[in-house]
């Protein structure tokens, strides 16, 4: 590292940015974030610890097939006698992992592409037309294609959901960059000889963070839904892993005699997606009310 760069870091440390204390307080005061976040933390805890406390979700028990909910098996059992309660709790893990992974990956890729598209005029058209192309691929068809090529794994499912999500993030970041790059303070930095990477890092990137966090929650919710749909269609996570989509798919045949097989994973999915969306709305309102219109 050059002396110059070291000095720059020093200066950043000397005149360190202090966080606005009212922001955190504002977030906790927001009822949507409080309740949605609380519910989400609860689900995360269940997903993390739950499977260690319950029965093995894949254990077969032919004697107890299609049992209705009871004190022994809270959510009943399926056509192979597997405990639905254990399976639903394990399924939360799959859903959250897919949701969070898709959100992180698509926001990461989208951020970089969006910054480049917004700032480097030459690449703008190339990137954006590619994104338009990607956006036109339906996630479900893409997943079926990918799985038939490389086999059903968690990775393929995540990839299949990430690809159509990335363009949405790119568009958002690009829109923010295009407005911020016209700000006089960015022009002042250019006139002061600040190099492009530093301009992006110091003056442009921080403005994209708030809308990105909000967008990430929506990506997360939609990824969880897509994952379940893929599972339900049999084009998702391999059937031996109890994801909510898989449980519902297997329960479909017995829906009329044992509706609980579909009911409980369905409730789990609906509540989780709802919680994520509520948190997203709350974050949108507290972080920056103006971006409400952009998303």
């Amino acid at each position, binding site marked *: 590292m050059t002396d110059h760069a070291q000095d720059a870091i020093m*200066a950043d440390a000397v005149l360190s940015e202090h966080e606005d204390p009212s922001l955190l307080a504002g977030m906790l005061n927001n009822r949507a974030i409080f309740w949605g976040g609380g519910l989400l933390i609860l689900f995360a805890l269940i997903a993390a610890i739950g499977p260690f406390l319950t029965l093995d979700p894949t254990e077969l028990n032919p004697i107890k097939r299609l049992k209705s909910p009871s004190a022994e098996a809270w959510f009943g059992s399926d056509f192979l006698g597997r405990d639905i309660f254990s399976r639903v709790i394990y399924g939360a893990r799959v859903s959250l992992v897919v949701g969070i992974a898709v959100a992180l990956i698509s926001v990461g890729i989208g951020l970089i592409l969006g910054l480049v598209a917004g700032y480097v005029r030459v690449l703008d058209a190339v990137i954006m037309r590619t994104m338009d192309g990607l956006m036109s691929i339906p996630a479900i068809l893409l997943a079926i294609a990918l799985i038939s090529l490389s086999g059903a794994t968690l990775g393929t499912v995540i990839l299949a959901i990430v690809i159509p999500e990335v363009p949405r993030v790119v568009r958002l970041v690009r829109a923010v960059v295009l407005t911020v790059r016209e700000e006089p303070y960015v022009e002042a930095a250019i006139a002061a*000889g600040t190099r492009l990477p530093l301009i992006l890092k110091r003056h442009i990137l921080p403005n994209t963070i708030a809308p990105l966090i909000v967008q990430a929650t929506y990506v997360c919710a939609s990824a969880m839904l897509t994952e379940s749909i893929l599972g339900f269609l049999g084009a998702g996570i391999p059937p031996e892993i109890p994801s909510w989509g898989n449980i519902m798919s297997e329960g479909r045949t017995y829906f009329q005699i044992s509706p609980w097989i579909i009911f409980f994973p369905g409730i789990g999915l609906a509540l989780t997606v709802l919680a994520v969306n509520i948190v997203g709305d709350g974050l949108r309102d507290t972080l920056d009310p103006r971006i409400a219109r952009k998303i």
Partner: protein
Amino acid sequence: MNEISDTPVLEIKGLSVLLPDGADREFAIEEVSFSIGRSEIVCIVGESGSGKSVTAFTVMGLIPKKDLVPVAGEILLHGENLLGKSDRQMRRLRGEKMGMVFQEPMTALNPVIKVGDQIAEILEIHANMSASARKKRVIETMEDVSLPEPVKMYNSYPHQLSGGQRQRIMIAMALVLEPGLLIADEPTTALDVTTQAEVLELIRDIQARHGTGVMFITHDFGVVADIADRVVVMQNGKVVEQGTRDEILSAPSHPYTKMLIGSVPSLTPPVRPIPEIAETALEAKALNKTYGRVGFFEKGRLVKAAQNVELILRRGETLGVVGESGSGKSTVARCVVRLIDPTSGDINVAGTNIAQMAESELRAYRQKIQIVFQDPYRSLNPRRTVGQSIVEGPMNFGLSGTEAQSRAENLMRIVGLAPEALTRFPHQFSGGQRQRICIARALAMEPRVLIADEAVSALDVSVQAQVLRLLQDVRERYDLAMLFITHDLRVAAQICDRIMVMQRGVVVEEGRTSEVYANPQHPYTRSLLNAAPGRETNFAR
């Protein structure tokens, strides 16, 4: 003019409006009393935050009722108190008994409805008239506000009209029901000076013909001098002084009024020594900037924002570039700083042509030219402390953190701020203070050329005077060459040694400031000077 026997059109008595909790003062306006008679133009003047707009909006009943609550006093329109009226009654009164003209004629009109229909809508709501009678009335009103070819213009959309024409439409909308009171909230602030003169003329003409009482809100004492019968001066929500125009402008009694009027820059350039021929700091030759492309696929039109602009700027002098919007003055400034690339021509800085230089080579020259922008609220990154903003440039050029820090502290003192304030964020400063910080940031680069692009245009007149003094002061202290871009002829008269007048991308006149003002050669320069509001008034000094 104002007959004593008449009840005034509007009488405000002891009006107070409460601000929500947590605001910087208790009342938005406090104990405000004044009256407007028939055929009388009363100007409400004050700086930003003085409560002049709140007063107007309270009269119209347009204040957000949750946040701003009138707690005392009365507003009498033709003797009737407006404060007790229901929303329904107020809706009837707006339009019939009082009309309003807003500052921004583009956003105040609906972009997707024909302007004629927008005026007719008022008649549709308030008057029981047939469609053909409405149309006839609208066209009469459009004639009344001197719009050309009203029959044809009836079917135009707002974007097809010029700013001045849009403001005439707004005035026609306000006046179509012939209300007794017209409230105009900074109606000419967004307009160019020549258009402003026409609109002021129109308002005066209309109120004389119809006997309308006008409440005219403005921050510009030149406009006051041109239009007011009486003047009400407001500060921090209170009326500090009121009187006839001549009393207020030539013999103000309240210290605040005196200070405000004393801050109005004079249109007469002060006598300044002719500077010796110093070294050339910046030279532009045959500078052109064209926007748009005409190619095989594009049928787009070309906009020649700057055409063959020639300028020479020497150390220790200030060259003013004046013109109306679209004259190309900012284009020249931005080309010279290379924020935009000129289409052709030379820009010589320190003997090197930087006009077409690549960014990597250009960096070394960026240090020599710095710019201060118009909008103090957008010129500083809100997420970085002012210290970080000031040291950014020097550290790009290899200054160590501690040296840059001490340079920043020193500059803060020079621009009149405490060095301790370096750790604060921009939102903790006022507009004038932010502009000082921007000047400090530019000076931190130790430039040879300082470009002020409308740097004082967004500031209140008292703050404007201080920032102008600061600019003058730093120019002398550092022997800078300053390029001063402005639309305000008063400001230009006070600070510029030489002046360049631009119209539609072309320099139409150039010369020593005193000579250009005393003896303008080009017709455009003459029309600009003639349109300058308040040119015949001597403000109290």
